[in-house]
């Protein structure tokens, strides 16, 4: 069963539409990453899924039940928890904070304390239990907030930029703990991130948002440009490069080069691709059966290739590579 299903979902602030999704389905046990630049609507979506805000239009169901009344939202908030981008810890001890949700559900102090301590232990934070919540580092606050959210054993955990500001080791520890939690019991995770690498590394599904709408392309290989116009085949300046694109538009626009449309090679290709860029491999990340290869060719381009191609070409970080794509593959927004 789907944990969340949303239809014709729309949210407005001050008369301006900030989120508009035709449909959204998040299956039970999923790890969905919501990616997009600042202002894309990621936090807005999470607050709707957390039933903290009420949508301007549309419906959301939780485990098949439509949540459309204040009473239903209140009940749903006991099954879903949201960890803010900058989590707030209440005055008092770390343990008191982690026990908060349980106490709110009428669990007695002793049992709440025990379950809170267990949640802290699962996130390897046991030693923080007695500490003053106001005396923690940013990374610790983030992890304590996750422990606090998990202590109530929600069906879904929503994380808004769970790894912003914290160090890489902390990122890793957090996602490892979340994976362990999912192995322990059914748990759906939706996390918003502007770090695509984390999204690809930890998520099994991805929703890219752009200006409040589901974007057909992931927010990588996106470039703000000024289209010169004049003809449908245009030469556009992107950073230090000139790219050929096919469009009739003129003026400011966003170019998107889908990662799966980029051909990676170790030698310059003689093909129909109008754009052939020489650069170096700067990052490589696994993405299921495929590999995500980031090539710095003056601008950073992410290409999605098969693991086999990657091995056959013998690509290495720091090694030279060519990125080629057709001018018609470049999307213009």
């Amino acid at each position, binding site marked *: 069963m789907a944990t969340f299903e949303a239809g014709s979902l729309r949210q407005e602030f001050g008369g301006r539409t900030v989120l508009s999704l035709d449909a959204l389905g998040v299956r039970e046990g999923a790890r969905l990453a919501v990616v997009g630049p600042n202002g894309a609507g990621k936090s807005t979506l999470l607050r709707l899924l957390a039933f*903290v805000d009420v949508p301007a239009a549309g419906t959301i169901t939780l485990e098949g039940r439509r949540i459309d009344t204040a009473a239903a939202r209140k009940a749903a908030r006991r099954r879903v928890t949201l960890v*803010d981008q900058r989590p707030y810890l209440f005055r008092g001890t770390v343990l008191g904070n982690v026990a908060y*949700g349980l106490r709110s559900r009428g669990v007695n102090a002793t049992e709440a304390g025990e379950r809170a301590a267990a949640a802290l232990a699962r996130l390897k934070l046991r030693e923080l239990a007695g500490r003053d919540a106001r005396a923690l580092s940013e990374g610790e606050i983030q992890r304590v907030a996750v422990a606090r959210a998990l202590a109530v054993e929600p069906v879904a955990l929503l994380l808004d930029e769970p790894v912003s500001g914290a160090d890489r080791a902390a990122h890793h520890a957090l996602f490892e703990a979340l994976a362990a939690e999912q192995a322990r019991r059914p748990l759906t995770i939706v996390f918003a991130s502007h770090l695509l690498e984390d999204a690809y590394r930890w998520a099994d599904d991805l929703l890219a948002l752009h200006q409040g709408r589901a974007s057909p392309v992931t927010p990588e290989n996106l470039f703000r440009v000024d289209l010169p116009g004049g003809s449908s085949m245009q030469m556009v300046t992107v950073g230090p490069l000139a790219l050929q694109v096919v469009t009739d538009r003129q003026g400011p626009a966003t170019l998107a080069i889908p990662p799966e449309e980029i051909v990676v090679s170790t030698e310059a290709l003689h093909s129909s691709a109008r754009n052939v860029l020489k650069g170096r491999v700067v990052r490589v990340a696994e993405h299921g059966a495929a590999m995500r290869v980031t090539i710095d060719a003056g601008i950073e381009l992410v290409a999605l290739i098969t693991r086999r191609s990657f091995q056959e070409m013998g690509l290495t970080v720091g090694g030279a590579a060519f990125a080629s794509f057709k001018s018609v593959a470049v999307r213009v927004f």
Partner: protein
Amino acid sequence: MNAPGEVLGIAVLSLKIALVATVIACLLGIPLGFYLGWTRFRGRRVLLALLNTALALPTVVIGLLVYLLLARRGPLGALGLLYTWQAIVVAEVVLALPIATALSAAAIQAVDPRVRRTALTLGAGALRTAWTVAREARFALLAGVVVAFGRVLSEVGAALMVGGNVRHETRTLTTAITLATSQGEFGLAVALGLILLALALTVSVLIQLLQGHGDI
């Protein structure tokens, strides 16, 4: 008025009046201030503006209003409260209520908006969420209580008008200081003033200790 016993009686009465008036004013004012700081409704800003005006209400005006209210021919004259310590309490409550309300509203408004959202997302109901917000604001709320207490303890105009400065009955530290000064007993006036200061200081230190304990 020179007997130490009498001075002690005056100090105790002053403290009693100030405590009772502060408790009543806070019991009414803190929930009211919470409501004003917490909810958004039409006319809220007007109410807050009126409240801030009430903060500047001269104590003699309050004294006059309560006097007219409690006077034998007044609406509450039948209660026979005029020139009793309870009458002073009524006047001091009127004085302290806007302080307790306005400072509580400000304290609640100053609470980080994430507190409410965090409580909600952790499944807290409306009451628990409100309680959590109040808990986060407790030091600011406590500061409001201290200000109200200090104001009530040091008030003289209304206490004179509705209490009458009756020896052994409604004579408070402030009214006694007024009397001693008018009679040229400056030494006594200064001594009474020092007792008043000591009382205010004690309460303030107690609150500070409480705050310090809470921050550990």
